[in-house]
């Protein structure tokens, strides 16, 4: 295992150093095989028999009500949690531990309050001993998330939306192959959230990143994802796997096409939430127009 990690590390390094290739990582390919999980041996399963693949560069939403195990599943994609059964294979390698190549973003930005914006954004490069890239990479990446003027400010002086943008810059700086978003916009106001949803999708597409986001917000899934995997709870299983066919313009909302996709997905979400023997929950959908 250590061997394969070293090899893939140096391969990625080589790709970044090659002068004529585009300096962007190609998104990760993910295969989830027979994955089941229980927190304790005798507890019920949180996840049961999950099998699906995510193509390189695909933007996938895991949608479901609370308790369907979507967040647990995302932690397993990151390598921060290990499934009790089955495996997660990324680019052909079974993953055992977290890696800066697939970075998670959480609901709280969790910036280090004793650091400036630029220092926070540079953490991934520092941890992976790429200090020599910081001077060039960090201004670029802060520009990308519209925080170019904030580099030397203390992280605590920023608004919630700006802090989440720093967290995004921090995740993107080490040039990951995949971003994993665990409801990262749910604590933000509607306007800020919309901007970030649009910008994150745009950035992921531009960089060719694989993007997996967990949400219970149907509108967010329709706005951001190419494909939505709806999960049902008790135990967490894939209820439906569906493609969102909207143009970039239609995704901004308001169009009939957007409304139609939204209604269709809301319908699936409700069916999954109403699956037998379960209490229902109203989806958190205050972004609907």
């Amino acid at each position, binding site marked *: 295992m250590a061997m394969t990690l070293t090899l893939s590390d140096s391969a990625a390094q080589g790709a970044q150093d090659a002068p004529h290739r585009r300096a962007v990582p190609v998104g990760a390919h993910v295969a989830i095989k027979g994955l089941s999980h229980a927190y304790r041996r005798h507890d019920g399963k949180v996840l049961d028999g999950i099998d699906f693949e995510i193509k390189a560069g695909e933007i996938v939403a895991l949608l479901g009500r609370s308790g369907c195990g979507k967040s647990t599943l995302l932690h397993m994609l990151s390598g921060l949690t290990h499934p009790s059964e089955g495996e997660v294979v990324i680019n052909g390698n079974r993953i055992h531990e977290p890696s*800066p190549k697939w970075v998670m973003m959480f609901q709280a930005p*969790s910036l280090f309050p*004793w650091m400036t914006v630029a220092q926070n954004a540079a*953490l991934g490069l520092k941890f992976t001993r790429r200090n020599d890239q910081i001077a060039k990479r960090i201004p670029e990446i802060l520009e990308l998330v519209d925080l170019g*003027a904030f580099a030397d400010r203390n992280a*605590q*002086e*920023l608004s919630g939306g700006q802090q989440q943008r720093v967290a995004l810059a921090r995740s993107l700086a080490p040039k990951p192959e995949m971003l994993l978003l665990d409801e990262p916009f749910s604590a933000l106001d509607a306007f800020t959230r919309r901007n970030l949803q649009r910008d994150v999708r745009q950035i992921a597409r531009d960089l060719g990143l694989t993007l997996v986001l967990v949400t219970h917000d149907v509108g967010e899934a329709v706005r951001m994802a190419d494909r939505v995997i709806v999960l049902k709870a008790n135990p967490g299983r894939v209820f439906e796997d569906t493609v969102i066919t909207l143009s970039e313009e239609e995704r901004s909302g308001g169009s009939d096409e957007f409304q139609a996709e939204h209604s269709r997905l809301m319908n699936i979400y409700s069916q999954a939430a109403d699956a037998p023997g379960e209490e229902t929950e109203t989806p958190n959908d205050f972004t609907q127009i």
Partner: protein
Amino acid sequence: MSDAVQLPSTILRIPRLGSARSLINALIGIAALMGVWWLGGFIVENDPDLYAFSDFAPAPTLERLWEMIVSGEVLTMSGPSLQRVGLGLLFAAAFGVPVGILIGRAPRIHEVTNVPFQFLRMISPLSWMPIAVMAFDTWDGAIVFLIAMAAVWPILFSTAAGVRRIDPAWLKVARNLGAGPLHLLGTVILPAIAVDVMQGIRLALGVAWVVLVPAEYLGVTSGLGFAINDARDTLDYSRLAATVVVIGVIGFALDAAIGQLVKKFNWVRAAAH
């Protein structure tokens, strides 16, 4: 495009409006202390039974203090004391910070060590004096040991409390970005607890400075404690009182200096959203 209006950073640096008032109040406090001292001297001077102690009054004391400052005696007597306190604090921090981090990180170690450490903490450091004298070859060694025994607990417990308050999300984020154990320590844990460690050292200094004087009654022939003892034996009361003033002033200055360091290491911004 950005999500909020950019505040000019000068907003964070408005001078405190109360600073003039607090200076005046501090001066009133100092004047009151001097008043009580003068009154005590006045009573002693006019009481035939106590007349021998009249050199404790402000006038002879401050006159003597000035002589001691000019002659360099103040530096000679406080140098060795500062060295002993410094060494004692250094040993206390060298043990207290790493062990505090371990205790804060591992609940198991906390549970195992809690009773022994709380037990040892409640023993007056001066009660180790006979053991220290036997265990160390030099008086200096014994004094540094006593100071370290007094100083280690505030540093250890403050460090452990700081580690327990670390946001677990910071560690998760760092691990996710590829941080190894040394990165977690150097980039997350130590900066996060720096202010707690400094607060522990500030408390420790207070205790150490208190323990220093009685500890220097032991064998040594230098330092502030020795000077007090020596002045008492030679009935040189103005020198004794002047030494007391020196002890108070140095202790106050050291505490204020560490207070500034605590502020410097405190990463919480008052104007945070």
